[in-house]
C-alpha cells in the first residue's frame, strides 16, 4: 500500500483545468519529484497534498485512509513554500518554535530540545538569534526546512524550494536536503521545473505536462524509455554523465 495515494484527481479553476484525472502513489520513505514546465499543474497537485487546495473530483489517501477533506493541520505534514514564508518578526529559533508551541503535549524543555536539534540538523545553531532578513538565501531555505521538520511530520512537501537561489548554493543544498531526507527517512514530494534537480535528487520522478502526469519512473527509466516526445525532450537536456555520478555515489 502506498503511503500517499492520489486517485483520479481533477481540479478545475472556473473553466480552466489544472489537473485532469491524476492518479499516483508515493511509497513510505520515498523521495518523489514532480517535474514539469510552469503552468502544468504541479504546484496545484502539491497544494492538494497539503490540503491547502480542494479537489474538484477524486480522492487523496494517506496511510490508506481517505483524507481528501482533512484540513492541513490534521495531516501531520511539513511544507516549505517557494517564498519560504518565514515570519519576518521572529528569529530563526522563533520560527522553528512557532509550530512546536502548538503541541500542547510537549513540555517547554522538550520544545527547546527539539528546536535545538533542528538547528543542529540544518547547521544554523550559531545563527539562531538572527531574523530572516539577516540571513542569506540558503540559510533562509534551511530555516524553512527546519521549521517544516520540527513537528516530525509524516511527509514533507517542498514547493520549488531552491528556485530562488544561485547555482552554487543550489547544488550544495540539493545534496543537503537529500541527506537530511535519507537520515530521517521522511516521505518527500518536491515540485521543480529543473530536470537536473529532479533527476539528481529523486528516487522517482513524475513528469507532468498540461494537467496530466505523462510518465512516472526512476531517472534511469525515464532516460532510457521516455514514453512521449515531451518526456524525451525534457530528459535529453539532462547530462547523463551527471546521472552516472549520482548512481555511483548511491552505491
Amino acid at each position, binding site marked *: 500500500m502506498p503511503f500517499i495515494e492520489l486517485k483520479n484527481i481533477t481540479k478545475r479553476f472556473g473553466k480552466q483545468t489544472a489537473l485532469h484525472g491524476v492518479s499516483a502513489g508515493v511509497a513510505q520513505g520515498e523521495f518523489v519529484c514532480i517535474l514539469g514546465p510552469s503552468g502544468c499543474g504541479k504546484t496545484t497537485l502539491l497544494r492538494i497534498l497539503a490540503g491547502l487546495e480542494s479537489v*474538484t473530483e477524486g480522492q487523496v489517501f494517506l496511510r490508506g485512509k481517505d483524507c481528501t477533506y482533512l484540513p492541513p*493541520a490534521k495531516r501531520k505534514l511539513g511544507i516549505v513554500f517557494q517564498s519560504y*514564508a518565514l*515570519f*519576518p518578526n521572529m528569529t530563526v529559533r522563533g520560527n522553528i518554535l512557532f*509550530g512546536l508551541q*502548538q503541541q500542547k503535549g510537549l513540555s517547554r524543555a522538550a520544545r527547546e530540545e527539539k528546536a535545538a536539534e533542528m538547528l543542529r540538523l540544518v547547521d544554523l545553531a550559531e545563527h539562531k538569534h538572527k531574523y530572516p532578513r539577516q540571513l542569506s538565501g540558503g540559510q533562509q531555505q534551511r530555516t524553512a526546512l527546519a*521549521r*517544516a521538520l520540527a513537528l516530525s511530520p509524516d511527509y514533507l512537501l517542498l514547493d520549488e524550494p531552491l528556485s530562488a537561489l544561485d547555482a552554487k548554493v543550489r547544488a550544495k543544498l540539493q545534496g543537503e536536503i537529500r541527506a537530511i531526507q535519507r537520515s530521517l527517512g521522511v516521505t518527500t514530494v518536491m515540485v521543480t521545473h529543473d530536470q537536473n534537480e529532479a533527476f539528481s535528487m529523486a528516487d522517482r520522478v513524475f513528469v507532468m505536462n498540461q494537467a496530466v502526469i505523462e510518465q512516472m519512473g526512476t531517472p534511469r527509466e525515464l532516460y532510457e524509455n521516455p514514453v512521449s516526445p515531451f518526456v524525451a525532450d525534457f530528459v535529453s537536456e539532462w547530462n547523463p554523465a551527471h546521472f552516472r555520478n549520482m548512481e555511483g555515489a548511491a552505491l
Partner: protein
Amino acid sequence: MKNRLRQKFLRVSLPQAFALASCLAAFTATLVLPLFSLLKKAFLDPAGQFVGFANYLQYFKTPTLRASIGHTFFISIVTMAGSVALGFAYAYALTRTRVPGKTFFKYVALLPVFIPTIAHAIGLVYLLGRQGLITRLGLPVALYGPGGIILSELIFTFPQAFLMFYVALEFADGRLYEAAGVMGVGPLRRFFRITLPEVKFTLGSACFVCFTLAFTDFGAPKVIGGSYNVLATDIYKQVSGQFDMNMGAVVGTLLLIPAVLCFLGDRLFTSKNESALNARATKLNIKPSLARDSFFFLLCAAVTLCLLVLVAALCMGALVKFYPYDMNFTWKHFQFNASTGGIGSYFNSLKMSVWTAVLGAAFVFAVAYLLEKTNGLGFLRKYGRLLSVLPLALPGMVIGLSFIFFFNSKQNPLHFIYGSIIILVLSNILHYFSVPFLTASASLKKLDSEFENAAECLGAPRWKTFLRVSVPLCLPAILEIVMYYFVNSMVTVSAVVFLYSADFRIASIALTHMEEAGDISQAAAMSLLILGINLLARLAYEVTARGLRRKSQQKERL
C-alpha cells in the same frame, strides 16, 4: 451533495466565516439600516404618513432652500478647483523640485487637519472680519458670504488634496524621465506626458474628496456664511432649529449627490488603475533649476505663511483680553463658561477620541484582515468591500441624522446608546472608516499570503497567526490608523452635532456654541487646546513609528 459542499468549503473555516459574518452584520445594523430609516423619513410627513415626493416638492418650492443647492454647488466647485490646483502644486514642489525646507513645509501644510473647521473660520474672522487685523489695514474684504466660505473650505480641503498628491508623486520612475531627456523631450512636454498621466487617478479622487468635503462641511458656513445658505446649514436649521425631521431627511438625501455622482463617475473611469511602478524603477534625479525652485519656494512660503498667520490669529484671539480694544495678555479665556460646555467638554472629547481610536483601529483591522486573508466566501467579501468604502461617500451629517432616526426609535433594542458616549464613538468609527480601512488593506496586502498557510500547516489556529504575525507586522499601519481616528474624532462636528447630549458635551461642539454665544475668544482658546493635543498625538505617532522603523532596520543589519 455532502461531498460537493465539502469540496466547495474545504478551505473555508467556520470560525473565520462566523467572524466575518458578524462583523458585516454589525456594520449593516449600524450603517445600512440607519441610512434606510433616513431615506424612509424623506418620504413621510411628520405624522408618519407616506407622502411620496411631497417633501421634495415643498423643498423645491421654497426659494431660500432651493437657492442653497446652487450655493452649495458653487462653493464646492470653486473650492475643488482651487484646492486641487494648490494641493498639486504644493505636493509637486515637495517631491519634484529642489525646494529647501521640505520637512517644514510638509508639516505646516497638515496644520488645518488638527483643528475643527469652525476654528478655521474663526481664525479668518480675526484676520478678515469687520475688526480683523488685515481689514484694519484698510483692505475692503467681503468675508461674510461665499468668499469667506470658499476661503475657509480651501484651508480645510488643501491638506487632503496635498497629501493625496504627495503620496502619488513621492515615487517616480527616474528611468522614464531619463529616457525622455535622451530623446530630447523638453520639461514642459515631460510634465504633460509623464507626470500628469501618473497622477491621473489621484486627480480624480482628489477632486471628489475636495468636492465632497466642501459640499458637506458645516463649520465654515455656520460661522462666516452670513445669510448665504448652504445645504449643511439648512439641515442643521431644519433639525436643530425647527425640529422638521422630514425636511432634514430630504436635505440629507440631497447631501448624497456627490456620492451618486462619484458612483457614476467611477463607472466611467474605472480601468487599469495599476501603478506602472515596478521594482526596477530608479530614483528620480532632480536637477537644480533656479527659476523653477524659486517659483515653488515662493509658493510654498506663501501657503505656509497663510496657515501660520491663521494659527497665530487664533493664538492672539485666545490670549488678549478683549480684541481689538484691550490687547493685554491674559489666560482668562481658558476659563470656559459652563453654559457652552466648559473644560469638561474637552475631557469628554479626549475620552471619546481615545475610545474611537482604540476600538476603531481594532474593528478596522479585523474587518480588513477578514476581507483580505480568508478563503472563499466570495459573496460576503464583495459585500464587505462595498460596505468598507461606502462611508467615504457619506457626509457626517447624513450619518448623524440617520443615527437619530434609527436609534431614537423606541422599538430599537439599541435605543439605550442614544445620547451616550457609545453612539458618538460608533458614529465616528463608521464616519471615518474608509481611509483607515484602505491603509490596513494595503499593509495586509504586502504580507506574503503564504504566512497563513505556513502557520496552518504548523498547526497554529488562525487567531494565533493573526496576533503573532499579522498584527506585529502591520503595527506601523495600525498606529497610523489610531492617530487618524484620534485626530478626526477631536475635530469632527458634522456627525456628532446631532448626537451629543446635554450630559456629554464635546469640545468641537462647544466651539460651535461658544461662537453662537459670542464668546469668540473662548472658542479660539478651545481651538488651541484641540490643536495642542492633536499635535501631541501626531508627535507621539512620529516618535513611535520612528522607533519601530529603527527596530526593523536592526533586524535587517547583519
